[in-house]
């Protein structure tokens, strides 16, 4: 089992990154690690790019992931995966949601959304797992569970057993949303190796 690691979450304000990173943090705490997590509030949340850094290990000092050291990137949007390339190394794993959210310049017709941008990652030898988390969320009947489906997919790259994540959902998610979130987690987890 890995003794330490860096998990970077990226996406667009409002996509539920904070909950996703929170569930992952609790799961790593349950697994007995020291954990630090850093997030930025304020201006960045109005639909801009957002990120959360999660680091675990025996003793974690820095709350920030250094460039070139993210072991896992969980990107909730395609452009927001590509944007974090400088944080990756050649053995990084990227779990990316295939959703496209147009940035303002694209929505205004001033720029184009780049095609096949994920090739830039795979061309550099980085493992990219693209999943349609939104479709998973639709299937379980609650659109707001796309973030937990992403956590499910990502969990394949961590040693913690899926049961740990399910327990965390039981403890940390409001009763009314527990079952759908667990379903989204399981469905997301299955998407990676099926």
């Amino acid at each position, binding site marked *: 089992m890995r003794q330490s690691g860096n998990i970077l979450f990226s996406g667009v304000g409002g996509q539920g990154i904070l909950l996703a990173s929170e569930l992952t943090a609790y799961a790593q705490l349950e697994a007995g690690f020291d954990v630090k997590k850093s997030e930025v*509030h304020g201006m960045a949340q109005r*639909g801009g790019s957002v990120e959360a850094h999660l680091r675990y290990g025996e003793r974690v*000092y*820095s*709350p920030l992931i250094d460039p070139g050291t993210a072991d896992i990137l969980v990107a909730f949007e395609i452009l927001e995966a590509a944007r974090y390339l400088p944080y990756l190394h050649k053995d990084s794993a990227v779990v990316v949601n295939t959703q496209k959210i147009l940035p*303002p*310049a694209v929505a205004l*017709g001033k720029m184009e959304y780049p095609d096949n941008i994920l090739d830039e990652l795979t061309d550099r030898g980085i493992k990219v797992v693209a999943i349609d988390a939104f479709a998973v969320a639709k299937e379980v009947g609650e659109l707001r569970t796309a973030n937990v489906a992403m956590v499910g997919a990502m969990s394949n790259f961590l040693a913690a057993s899926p049961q740990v994540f399910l327990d*965390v959902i039981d403890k940390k998610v409001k009763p009314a949303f527990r079952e759908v979130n667990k379903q989204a987690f399981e469905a997301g987890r299955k998407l990676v190796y099926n």
Partner: protein
Amino acid sequence: MAFDDNDNKLWLSGNEAIALGAWEAGVQVASGYPGTPSTEIMGNLVRYEGVYGEWAPNEKVGLEVAIGASFAGVRAFATMKHVGVNVAADPLFTASYTGGRGGLVVLTADDPQMHSSQNEQDNRNYAFAAKLPMLEPSDPAEAKAMMRTAFELSERFDCPVLFRTTTRIAHVKGVVEKGERVATKPASVEKMPAKFVMLPGNARMRRAEIEKRMAAARELAETLPENRVEQGSGRRGFICAGTSYNYVKEAFPEAPVLKLGMVWPLPEGMIRDFAATVDELIVVEELDPFLETHIKAMGIDCHGKDLIPSQGELNSFIVRKAVEPDSVGELFAPLDLPMRPPNMCAGCPHRGIFYNLSKMKDVFVSGDIGCYTLGFLPPLSAMDSCVCMGASVTVAHGMSKALGEDGMGKVVAVLGDSTFMHSGMTGLLNAVYNESNATVIILDNRTTAMTGHQNNPASGKNIKGEPAHAVNLEKLCEAIGVPRVRVVNPHEINKTKKVLKEEIASPDPSVVISRAPCVLLPEMVKAKKPVYFTNLENCSGCMACVRLGCPAISWHPLTPEQAEERGYTKKQKGYAEITEVQCNGCGQCAELCKFEAISTREEN
């Protein structure tokens, strides 16, 4: 399961930990003004029993409230972001003379990198300038523990103690251990005029006390457990504090480190001894060479800003690279991608005002700080200046005076309700008193949205969401003497345009109150309005709606062939479409569309 509410170990953000630490330290009165990254402290603190907490209209008011509570003998706490200390600097510098009775801690949350701020000032300089002790934690666990130390030092030295955090303390989560609340003292009235009345005669006496207490604090710094040497190997040693300590520990885990928990005054003996044990001394700190300057003033040779950047945040990569440039490997270069700056929400009431202002090309828009500052960004691009909170009104007045007759109808000020309460009111008073011809637009969205929707004196609710008096902005402006006060619904673009034109043209000072609630307020989310959709066959591709910059509206370009395929004329360059799940039903785009291409499902 660990880390739930019954466990002694908690998983908390720095701000949550500070609230817990303040409660454990026996704080009884707290006042603050929101500001990233300090805001969540106050919101969390008021949930504890035995603490009175409030949102003040600005930081000066907040600090003075805390000073009053300290004068009454209880432990008191004031919170603010770094620039808030500029606003509160007046009481701060003199509270340094008076001291108090109950411990008084003033929290400054700095924002290196300017994630959510207009500057990245280093508030350690305030500790030096105001002659006050300052503590600086490195993570949430330390932040909680240091709150208690801060209150003890405040009472021991009879002065306010500054507590500095940065974004990477405030918004970092880590493991924190819960403790007990200390016994609190009842408040009482005790008259101590020689200490509390700062007339020159008394102040000169207190000035001497400051020197005595700072000498005592310097001495204590030598043995304070928060200042410590961590032994290591190698001939290179580091001095650091705050989050920089974490980066040094990651970058050079074996190196000896002098970690300062109290960054002012400094333990000269400890620093000298540490320096003597190493061949090379490196001070690692974000922003200003604060520690470096004072260490060099002791006659101790060290590296600092010759190696370490003085702008923005650090991380362990930057520290390693600065100290051992050859030790870091190549990184993947960033790709050239469209940026994703923040934007006002779909259905934001501010958009209606800025859309209208964007059409008035010869009007200078003197802006202010809040969500509406985003009106600066394209496609609206309708803000021409923004300095600090409240400056919209005063800058507009100054411009109108400089321009004289030529300025008529050319200058407007735009500010939010919370900003108006904070420091816009006094500027308006001046504008009326000194006969400005500028027009002031108050964006009354019933909340302090930018920092996460805190209530303010215009919201009708207090910090806990309980009913409170709501100031009547119209009457307030009238009482100030504004001869023309108009209220508009900003979602009604054309009616608003008419009022704005009339008021901007008027030679008298005038106020336009733009009144519509922020769409993210819980009551607005619950009462979700019918959403709009695009009748694509009617879209003429005129882009009128696109120019609003609503994130729910996207432009789809078409080639002539694609246009024909879709049943448009060859000349049509594209079509606009509303993403219905994002629409908040404000109706602004529907009013702008001349081709009946935008409607609600009900209208259709």
